């Protein structure tokens, strides 16, 4: 198992190198002069030249690339054009917000999805089952940013139940993790965006769980569990759901990719100070170093979650052993 993880981590790092290379050249192909965004156009050309020199923009692409990769190994993504601060620091600041939002949404989606899907399979053919399918498809069909805007319209602008923007009420500042994230104020800010993201995710666990449950429920060991005189709930959750969960876990891993993508939009709508919103702003501002860094971090996050899911799969299914 350890050997397998080591191998996977090695592949992951190689992949990350490739992704970084791709993103580096993609940004260099961007139209427009990057200095135009970091240097006030009214400044004399000499000053602009100086700035370009400082950020290494005058070197050849290959020289820039070599420096970029060398720095990357040291987790140094350079300085942001816009903020004028190290990208690594900025990412460190933005990362917790993104992760917290993603995990809260995942927890909402998977809790409701797994139990709901199991229950829908149990109630197969009922009105409630098709209502459940339709419900999840409606939210899969609705763009997250639009649902977010609607939620803000209803729950913030009209009902004034929840704040619409950011992670905390303006004026509040905290330094430690607990001061920032473990407050009622933060929780209030978290509710709307995580519900919106959760609703979008929910179709995946719900529908896969339902289908996989239907399959499992016709297995012989389910009849056997019933024949043992176990309670209905025990059969449903301990025996059937436990097995049906396996494909849900795999699908969940692959889904995380698009989940992070969808979250970019939610972060924008809710002005959530995470990596996703940062990447949109960085691209708009032609802030390569920051956009690159955020992109690579999101990519690493995806790969990491994939690995976690594979390991989880092995833990859940005794038949699987990785070598």
């Amino acid at each position: 198992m350890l050997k397998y993880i080591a191998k996977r981590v090695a592949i992951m790092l190689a992949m990350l190198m490739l992704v970084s290379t791709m993103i580096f050249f993609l940004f260099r192909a961007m139209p427009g002069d990057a200095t135009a965004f970091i240097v006030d156009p009214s400044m004399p050309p000499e000053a602009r030249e100086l700035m370009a020199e400082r950020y290494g923009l005058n070197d050849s692409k290959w020289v820039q690339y070599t420096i970029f990769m060398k720095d990357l190994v040291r987790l140094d993504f350079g300085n942001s054009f816009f903020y004028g601060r190290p990208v690594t620091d900025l990412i460190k600041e933005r990362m917790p917000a993104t992760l917290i939002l993603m995990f809260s949404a995942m927890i909402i989606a998977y809790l409701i999805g797994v139990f709901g899907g199991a229950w829908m399979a149990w109630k197969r053919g009922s009105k409630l089952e098709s209502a459940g399918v339709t419900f999840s498809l409606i939210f899969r069909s609705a763009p997250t940013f639009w649902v977010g805007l609607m939620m803000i319209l209803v729950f913030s602008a009209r009902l004034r139940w929840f704040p619409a923007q950011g992670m905390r009420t303006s004026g509040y500042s905290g330094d430690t993790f607990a001061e920032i994230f473990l407050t009622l104020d933060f929780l209030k800010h978290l509710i709307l965006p995580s519900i919106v993201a959760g609703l979008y995710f929910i179709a995946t666990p719900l529908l896969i769980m339902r289908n996989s449950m239907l399959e499992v429920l016709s297995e012989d060991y389910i009849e056997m569990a019933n024949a043992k005189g176990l309670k209905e709930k025990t059969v449903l959750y301990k025996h059937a759901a436990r097995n049906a969960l396996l494909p849900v876990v795999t699908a969940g891993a692959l889904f995380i990719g698009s989940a992070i993508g969808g979250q970019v939009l939610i972060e924008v709508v809710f002005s959530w100070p995470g990596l996703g919103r940062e990447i949109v702003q960085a691209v708009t501002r032609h802030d390569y170093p920051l956009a690159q860094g955020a992109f690579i971090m999101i990519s690493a996050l995806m790969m990491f979650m994939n690995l976690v899911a594979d390991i989880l799969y092995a833990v859940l299914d005794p038949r699987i052993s990785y070598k």
Partner: protein
Amino acid sequence: MNLLEVRNLDIDYVTQEGTLKAISDVSFDLKQGESIGLVGESGCGKTTLAKSIMRLLPKNGVISKGEMLFKGEDIVKKSKEEVRKLRLKEIAMISQSAMNALNPVYTVGDQLIEGIRAHSNATKEEAAKRAEEVFKIIGLEAKRLKSYPHQMSGGMKQRAIIAMALTLNPSLIIADEPTTALDVVVQDKILNQIIEIQKQINSSMVFITHDISVVSEICETIIVMYGGKIMEKANTKVFFKAPYHPYSLGLQNAFPSIKEIGEELISIPGSPPNLMKEQNGCRFQERCPFRTELCQKELPELKEVGEEHLIACHYPEKVNEFREDAKKRETWEGVRNRLIEESVGEA
């Protein structure tokens, strides 16, 4: 005293295409300690009947009529919870497919312990001890309790399932083709073990199989089913010496004893009736070489032809004639030709 009395049982499957009458008007008694072999082709209703005793029918299966008195109480009328308490403790099942009857994600031991604890206040340790005991009885090492199903052979899994059925000394064991998935040598061993243990704990048994020869070895009583009805019920010894029903005669041809090895098998031409359709007369008449007009019109009742020997045929008195003819190939060839003619006529 009878452990189980089944009276006028009807079971339907409700499907999109219509209702399938899987069991119609089936009655029989099972004495304490007795073992009954249920035989018949697939689709004759034997598995449905067995499952209904544990109320394990699929969702679309309905007991539409009749009663099943287990220790004097009607299982049909019991609530879900009451039935649940009966399962494993009073009525245990040895299931058909050893390969898939164990949950792949739990150890075999956990699955045994779980069953024990669902019916008693036993602690985990007590239940584990009991599991070890039954494993010993069935001839499995105690350390196997810690194995996952995929780490065991088919024979071991089957033994584990038998062990599971025995954990609470049930009064009734339902064995649904318990050895079909195994190879012949293992089959025999396991069959013998089942009987031995059944005798030991003096439980009754309903043994389902399509292999009539197995019944001769292990059951006192045999019930031959066809098209959802009982055709013949008899003491096994009597039955194998002198079966009455034309269908039984046909079955005997298809499964020769060792003595007659070398003889060619004669099978019964045609296929079982479609139980979605309304049935007229005797269920077997379509494939019966001796049918008359009466057989096509009127359903024969189960009649006693000897001590505890019941058959559902209009002509028990012609049995000697039937037995002679049933041995001949031409008799069954005649059925084949008749079936072909009929199908041509319809087209």
